[in-house]
């Protein structure tokens, strides 16, 4: 593996500091293999004043060592809820059931004490809103050192040197470790959060919409940074995003979530080239695609309607209310998961997917529904 894989818009010519950081990092990486994660029948219900809110329902997926799994869906689909539960950050009183085996170890329902040992050494988090994710009254370096020293009995000087390496890795000058969060731009804070997540070479990285709070140019910079790091370090990773284009560029596998359930999952290339679930087809329409030569530019089509109220989830398919192809059966009977090769989807009419795909590409298919609703 070479450092050329880290070539990104900002550091196409890697600085000596970066090279040095990568060299020492390689030694430590060798000591800690990428993790394997298997999530089985994960269900999560928040307790609210008006009863349980079933944010996540019967979700299963697997992250193979060194691969990157994309978790996509609109906001409010339970993607972030899954991530929070995996690192034990669900709010008090939340019911979590199912299994999540990290290298064979159950990580759901651990005590706070047991969680302390798992967090950051085995599984670490790149948070959603880096703007507010750093403690305003401590300097950046202290906050990175805090993570290192919580788990390894190393001197502060050693921890600081490690923080400098991590900073070099994300392309920030070591001198700015003495700065406070308010002195950083949004992009710099996001990179700080990434550096922090890498500090202990956890085998599993959770990235929870790492770029939503940033402007588009910064978004693409940060994403290529994450891609570069992923390619170089080969950690296992779950990337949560609502942008299906990001998944296409970054992730080997994709899980599409809708209203707390898995709509479709499989290898990214398959899922994007031949979506089986109408929701995936709709999501694809909602994001700009690179224009293909000779074909007309496609208009963006958003899916009309809103996610159903999960205080009282509908009995049938949760997407039925917004699906242009829904039949009566879809509203009554919840569809089972059907596999087609490596890909699988929860739709009654999986056989008619090719026909749906063709119709879904036409804007009027979705517009009709919008008018009817």
């Amino acid at each position, binding site marked *: 593996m070479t450092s050329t894989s880290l070539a990104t818009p900002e550091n196409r010519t890697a600085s000596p500091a970066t090279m040095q950081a990568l060299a020492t990092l390689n030694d430590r990486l060798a000591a800690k293999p990428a993790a394997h994660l298997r999530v089985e029948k994960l269900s999560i219900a928040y307790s609210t004043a008006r009863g349980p809110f079933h944010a996540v329902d019967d979700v299963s997926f697997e992250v193979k060592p060194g691969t990157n799994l994309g978790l996509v869906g609109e906001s409010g689909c339970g993607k972030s809820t899954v991530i929070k539960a995996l690192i034990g950050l669900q709010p008090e009183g939340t019911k979590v059931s199912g299994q999540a085996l990290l290298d064979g170890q159950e990580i759901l329902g651990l005590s706070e004490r047991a969680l302390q040992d798992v967090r950051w050494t085995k599984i670490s*988090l790149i948070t959603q809103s880096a703007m507010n994710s750093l*403690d305003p*009254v401590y300097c950046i370096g202290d906050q990175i050192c805090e*993570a290192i020293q919580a788990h390894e009995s190393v001197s502060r000087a050693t921890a600081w040197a490690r923080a400098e390496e991590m900073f070099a890795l994300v392309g920030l000058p070591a001198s700015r470790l003495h700065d406070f969060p308010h002195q950083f731009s949004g992009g710099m804070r996001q990179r700080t959060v990434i550096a922090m997540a890498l500090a202990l070479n956890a085998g599993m990285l959770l990235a929870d919409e790492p770029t939503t709070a940033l402007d588009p140019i910064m978004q693409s910079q940060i994403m290529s940074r994450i891609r570069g790091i992923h390619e170089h370090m080969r950690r296992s990773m779950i990337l949560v995003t609502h942008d299906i284009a990001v998944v296409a560029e970054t992730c080997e596998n994709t899980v599409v979530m809708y209203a707390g359930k898995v709509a479709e999952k499989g290898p990214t290339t398959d899922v994007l080239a031949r979506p089986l679930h109408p929701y995936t087809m709709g999501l694809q329409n909602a994001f700009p695609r690179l224009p293909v030569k000779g074909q007309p530019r496609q208009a963006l089509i958003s899916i009309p309607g809103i996610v159903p109220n999960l205080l009282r989830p509908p009995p049938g398919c949760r997407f039925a209310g917004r699906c242009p192809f829904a039949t009566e059966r879809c509203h009554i009977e919840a569809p089972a998961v059907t596999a087609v090769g490596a890909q699988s989807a929860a739709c009654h009419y999986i056989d008619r997917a090719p026909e749906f795909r063709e119709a879904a590409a036409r804007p009027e298919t979705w517009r009709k529904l919008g008018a009817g609703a």
Partner: protein
Amino acid sequence: MRAYILRRLAQSVLVIWAVTTIMFFMFRVMPADPTAILLERGLSDEARNALLEQWGLTGSLWDQYVAYLGNLLVGDFGSSFLYRKPVWEVLTPLIINTLWIAVPGLLLGAALGAAIGTAVGWARRGGKLERTGIFLATVIRGVPNFVIGIALLTVFSSTLGWFPGFGMGDPGQNVGFARYFTLDFLHHLALPLIAVIIYFMPENLLLMRSGVVENRTEDYIELVRAKGVSQGRVAWHAARNSMLPLITWLFPALAETIAGIVVIEIVFSWPGVGRELVLAVTRQDYPVAQAAFFLLAVMIVLANLAADLVYGKLDPRVVYK
């Protein structure tokens, strides 16, 4: 930074001037004759006028005011009607006595309140610890300070006899500063000090609790938790951020509480500035009363200034302009 401090100092001087002016007119315009207490002792008119002149009480109100300000500038508060000696001489030992119960009392009260407040703020929302903590703190906050004093006095002094309930004790051979380091002095100090702590703690506790509750749902706390540090360390992050609003409240309150210590000094007959203020007012010894009042006002202004500067030290986002 220096420019900022200078500007704040100038502001403080202005405020102190305003307070002194209010005070001056309060004492002079009110229909009370400062020489009344002396007249009872059979003072001749001549002697009376001489005294009035000596105290700067002759001439027009405006002349008196100018003379008074001039004296203040050189730190001259005049002399006591009653003790017949300069006010400074009367008050200096009393200031030290007041600081002896005020400073440790307020620091311990604030520290204890902040610690318990963090625990209550960190407890489960709506749980037993939170509810009991809030309830007790609110009720204790409602106990007037003289009632705290009376209760301590009755239980620990009269009934159990553990502590003396009156004054600072007999200095014996220890005069000057040496007296403050005798066991007897500390024995006398205990109850008034505890009274100040109980008096000052609940408000700190409630403020700290609000701050921790506000901060515990912030995103940065979530990331600290995710890092896998100990529970105590996570709570510390919330507490450290909650200290900022506490500091802005603490310093003005500190001076305000020094003012409230008046009552505690009376209950325990502790010879401090506050007790002297009350005595001077009832004996119509106005120079002493004025000076005591002035000292308390200066303390408040200085405390406000200190709050500003400490806040800047604790919050890296503050920039002094």
